[in-house]
């Protein structure tokens, strides 16, 4: 597949298990953070976001945790499904700005 030859971190999980994808961000002045999912041949798709005045936000089957002390962001996916297989990116927006600064990406593989 498209991931062959890529040297991104890979997380392999069994269908039905929970997944946790981690991200270290770079700019302590960033105040808005987003997780994106990218499937093969498609553009990044918004999953969930969080602002810097929060440390946790929940969506449907997904939870984002923000630890500003150590500049760490995580995405938790509950009951992972085969359709969750994709590359996941965290992104940050510097305070007052509108550009997204992306992390390196993590490949999530879901085994049936």
């Amino acid at each position, binding site marked *: 597949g498209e991931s062959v030859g*890529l*040297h*991104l971190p890979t997380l392999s999980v069994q269908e039905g298990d929970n997944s946790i994808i981690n991200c270290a961000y770079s700019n302590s002045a960033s105040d*808005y953070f*987003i997780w994106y999912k*990218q499937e093969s*041949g*498609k*553009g*990044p*798709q*918004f999953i969930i*976001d969080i602002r810097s005045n929060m440390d946790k936000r929940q969506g449907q089957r997904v939870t984002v945790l923000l630890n500003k002390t150590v500049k760490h962001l995580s995405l938790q996916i509950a009951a992972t499904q085969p359709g969750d297989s994709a*590359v996941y*990116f965290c992104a940050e*927006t510097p305070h007052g*700005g*509108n*550009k*997204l*600064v*992306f992390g*390196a*990406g993590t490949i999530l593989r879901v085994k049936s």
Partner: protein
Amino acid sequence: DTAVSQTPKYLVTQMGNDKSIKCEQNLGHDTMYWYKQDSKKFLKIMFSYNNKELIINETVPNRFSPKSPDKAHLNLHINSLELGDSAVYFCASSQGTRGYGYTFGSGTRLTVV
């Protein structure tokens, strides 16, 4: 369908040629962007326009020239293509200049041979 649409989806061309990629959004957003994704999947912003005005230009070679004829369109023209320009180029749009509610297009895979 409301979307960000790019054309073409694939572009194969020889070194030295000039090519354009077009982007249109019908979401009513007033800010549009070009991002480049390299072979390692790393995504980086190139340009941003707000209401046809260039607001971000991220150290991109001047062979790359964006043009925004109106706030719903943002095109990217590339002169004298080089092998290193091979990448996937994504157009995106958002409402306002705070970066909330980004919507990405499906990408243009440019291969320079």
